[in-house]
Each structure stands twice: as C-alpha cells, then as structure tokens.
C-alpha cells in the first residue's frame, strides 16, 4: 500500500440482491393493478350498452384483480423465503428493532430531517429508520392483512370446502360479516395508495437530497454514497 494515500471509505455497497429487486418491481406492478381493478370493482365503470353476452367487463376486471393478487401472494411468500436465505438487508422487511433505543432516536432524527430541522441526514446502508418502520407496517403487516382479507373474500366464490374457505373462511365471521371484510379490504387499498405516493416521493427526494443513492439502487442493487464522511 502506498503511503500518503488517504484511506478511502467504502463508497458502494451491494444491498439489494437480484431476487429482491425483481420482487420489488413485480410487487409494484401487481399493487398498481390491484389498486386500479379493486377500485373499479367497488365503483364499476359506467354501464355498457347492448347484450350482456357482448361484454365481460366486470368479469375481466375481477380476473385481473385475482391474477395480480396471486402474483402478489406468491411474491410475498417468496420474499419471506428470501429474508431467510438472502443477505442481512433482506431481513429488514420482517424485523423491526423495536427494543433498540438508537432506532427510535434515529427515527426522530429522520423525522426532523423531513421537517427541515436537521441540516444533514444520516447515512444508511439499508433502510433509514423511518422507511424501515413504514415498510414493516405497510408492506409486511398491511400486505398480510390484504392477503388474508382478500383470500377470505375470494373463498366466497370458490365456495365451502375450497382451500381458500378452509384456510381463510373464518375471517368473515371473525370480522363481522362479508360486507365488513369488503370494506376493510377497501380501506386497506387506500392506505397502500397513500403509502405508494409517499414512497415514490421520498425515494425521489432522498435520491436527490440524501447522502446515498436510492432509485438506482433498486435497479442495480448497489448503494452509492455521495461523500466519505461518517
């Protein structure tokens, strides 16, 4: 090693492995389809003229909703598997360091950064604490709630005795009745829509204003740091 050369800090870390990146974009697509078709199932498009046999609009809408839902579910299960076999950053979606005090103090710091009260954000290789909290609550817990309520509603058409009914039919009397499950599933959609808005905005903003790369990381997998300071 040559002397006199300043010790260069690591400026790039491989964070998101390929399967995680593929999952992210597939998930983004399925959520988009689910939200649009879901909204249109609850609030159908204007009536179509002609014979009933000329159209299959609601049928198709429901088909795309169910197809996207299965993609979302398979992705979710795969993501759990990857949390087990993947790198340490892949666990973050399923673990929240609830008892670690620094997590909460850093969370406050992050909130202050968004409130323009801090001059500079901290550097994070994985999620920052605020993002981490949101990911766990909305994507993991929220996603699970949507899967469970969604499969319970799906079991209504697959019928008594189907696997959806055997596994998730109990949800309907547990929540109240079918209409209640529908409404909670619908509320869930809006929660996720609002989350997506915040997620896209903060990702762009962080990419510009924070000290690390965000959007390109979800494409290439590499987290680039813009400075060498700690």
């Amino acid at each position, binding site marked *: 090693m040559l002397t006199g050369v300043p010790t260069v800090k690591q400026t790039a870390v491989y964070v998101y492995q390929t399967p995680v990146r593929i999952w992210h974009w597939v998930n983004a697509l399925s959520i988009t389809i689910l939200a649009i078709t879901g909204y249109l199932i609850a609030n159908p498009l204007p*009536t179509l003229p002609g014979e009933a046999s000329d159209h299959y609009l609601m049928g198709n809408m429901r088909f795309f909703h169910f197809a996207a839902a299965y993609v979302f579910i398979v992705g979710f299960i795969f993501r759990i598997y990857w949390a087990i076999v993947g790198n340490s950053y892949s666990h973050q979606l399923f673990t929240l360091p609830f008892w670690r005090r620094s997590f909460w103090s850093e969370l406050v710091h992050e909130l202050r950064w968004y409130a323009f009260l801090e001059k500079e954000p901290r550097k994070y290789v994985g999620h920052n604490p605020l993002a981490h909290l949101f990911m766990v609550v909305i994507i993991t817990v929220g996603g699970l709630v949507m899967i469970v309520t969604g499969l319970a509603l799906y079991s209504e058409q697959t*019928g008594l005795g189907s696997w959806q009914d055997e596994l998730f039919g109990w949800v309907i*009397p547990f929540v109240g009745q079918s209409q209640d499950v529908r409404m909670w599933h619908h509320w869930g959609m809006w929660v996720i829509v609002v989350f997506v808005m915040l997620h896209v905005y903060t990702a762009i903003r962080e990419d510009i204003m924070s000290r690390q790369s965000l959007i390109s990381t979800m494409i290439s997998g590499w987290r680039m740091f813009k400075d060498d300071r700690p």
Partner: protein
Amino acid sequence: MAMTETFYEVMRRQGITRRSFLKFCSLTATALGLEPAFAGKIAEAMETKPRTPVLWLHGLECTCCSESFIRSAHPLASDVVLSMISLDYDDVIMASAGHQAEAILTEIREKYKGNYILAVEGNPPLNQDGMSCIIGGRPFVEQLKEVAADCKAVISWGSCASWGCVQAAHPNPTQAVPVHEVITDKPIIKVPGCPPIAEVMTGVITYMLTFDRIPELDRQGRPKMFYGQRIHDKCYRRPHFDAGQFVEDWDDEGARKGYCLYKMGCKGPTTYNACSTVRWNNGVSFPIQSGHGCIGCSEDGFWDKGSFYDHVTNTHVFGIEANADKVGIAAAGTVGAAVTAHAAVSAIQRIKQRAGEHHEENDKT
C-alpha cells in the same frame, strides 16, 4: 313412548289421504335435493317414528317468521307440516291460552326430556333483568333457559334469534342478544332471514325429523343446503354484473331492462341465503326480481352496516361514520398536496444551501 302417535297417524287423523301424504313425501325429498329413493324413506320415517314435539317460543320479535312459515307455499306443506311437527306450543297460533298453555311447556319437558326440539323466534333482552319481554308474567329469558335445558336441539328462527336483528341494532337499548349467547350447551341451528323463506323453514324442520339429526351446518351454524352460497352466486341478473351492465338510477333504461343492482347497493354479493333459488311466495319472485337490491337481511347486524343503497358503505369505527372512498380520496389529495409543498420547500432549502456553499468556497479563495 308407546302411546305416542306417529306423524302418519296424525296426518290421517287430520283427514289427509294416503295419496296426498305420499305426494308430500316425494315433494319434500325433491325440495331437500335428495334422490327419488328417499321419498320412500321419508314416508317410512313418518309412518314409524313417533312425532317429535316442537316447542315454539316467541321472544322479542315481530312475528314475521311465523307469518312466513304459515305461508309455506309448497303444495300441502302448510297444512301437513303444521300437523307433522306436532307443534305442541306456539303462543302465537295455539288455541289454548293462559295457564293451560303454559302447562304444556312443563308437561312436554317432563314427558319428552331431551327429546323435543326447541324453536325460538325472536330473542331475549337482558337489560333491566329482561323486563323488556315478558311471557306469562316472567321475563322471556327465564322461559327460554328453562325450556332449553331439556331440549334436543334449538332452532333459531330468523335474524332475531340468529344474530339479534333490529332490536339489537345500535344502540340496542334492551340489550337484546341472539339465542346462542344465552344457550351455550345445546346444538343450535341458525335459520337467519327477516323473515327466513317459508320453504327453508319447513325444509330444515323436515330434514331434522326425517333423518333424526341436524342438517350439516356451516361455520356460523347455518344449514349449508340453504345458506351455502350467496344471493349473488345464483342471481339471474349475474350475467349483467359480469358484463358490467348496471342500474345507475331507479328509473333509467338499465332499471327497465333488469340490469344488475350492484351500484344501487344490492347486498347480494355479501348475503348468504336461498332467495335467488327458492324465491318467495310459491317461487313467484324475490327482491332483486322485483327490481330492488337485496338488503342482506339474513346477515349478521345488517341494520348497522350502512345504507341499503350504497355499495361502498360507511364504516363505523369509534363512533365515527366514514366512507372508505371519500376518506381515501381526501387522504390521497391531502398527501399529494403535502408532498408537493414539501418538495417545493426542499428545493428552496437546497438552493439556499447551494448558495451558502458557493459563498464559503468563494470566501476560501
């Protein structure tokens, strides 16, 4: 119980011909979805089995279940079934009254201990020691508990007995509760609906007497054969739903053409009942066929689930009524505006910072 008459004997005594009796047996077998051979089995059961006494109690209710039951439009069924089930006590339609009537309850309880069916229409209110419903000078809840103690099984007629219905709707001043919250040690068959369909009522009771067992029930205690599917699953307007053809207004072209009533708040997709197959009044019609959406009367707490005329109904949480779409759109709009404002402030901040850094650099040189 050697002295007990069989169903057949009772029917013959009441002037029903053997021919009518056999017709009834085959029709019942068909109604229950059984193969032809079962007509003979039903006939045999009725000829040989002693009548099972049914005690029919009335709690807090409107008697619409009885009104429905006595209109069982099945040919002969109204006459035959009423004799057949050996309805030993039903304070609404029985001839005897007063102490004479109440004595029957005690008599049946002792004579047929563990062998009679208890049918309950309505439900017991628990507030003020049950004072909101008095039968024979005593709170209904006491009568219910006493009679239920020795019964074989309980049939909860209608949404009152099954779920609570209108008297249990918010704020439920009398604290009316469904039967299964008071009687916990007996099998309970829920036959919800406001009222239940007449043929569903007679079908359930015939099944229990014929096979001497309770019908197969779903998770919530309803007979699968009548409550296994939703109105929506068997609705004759379903093709219009799948096509995306809806009634948008009560007097529009779609309403005249008989399009799907989903947008008018039809609860067919969330309601488990047999209306779209068995229909009402001798199979003449049912709400959707007459142009009005299903209000979901056989579902738990249907009075408190928002408007009958909205598909996206209000959700009641913490005493606040809110519509998911309205709140969702408002929230998305607010967040959108907040994000835009935040982005603007961020940009200004950054320009300022840049300018500051520029100054510093200029100062250094």
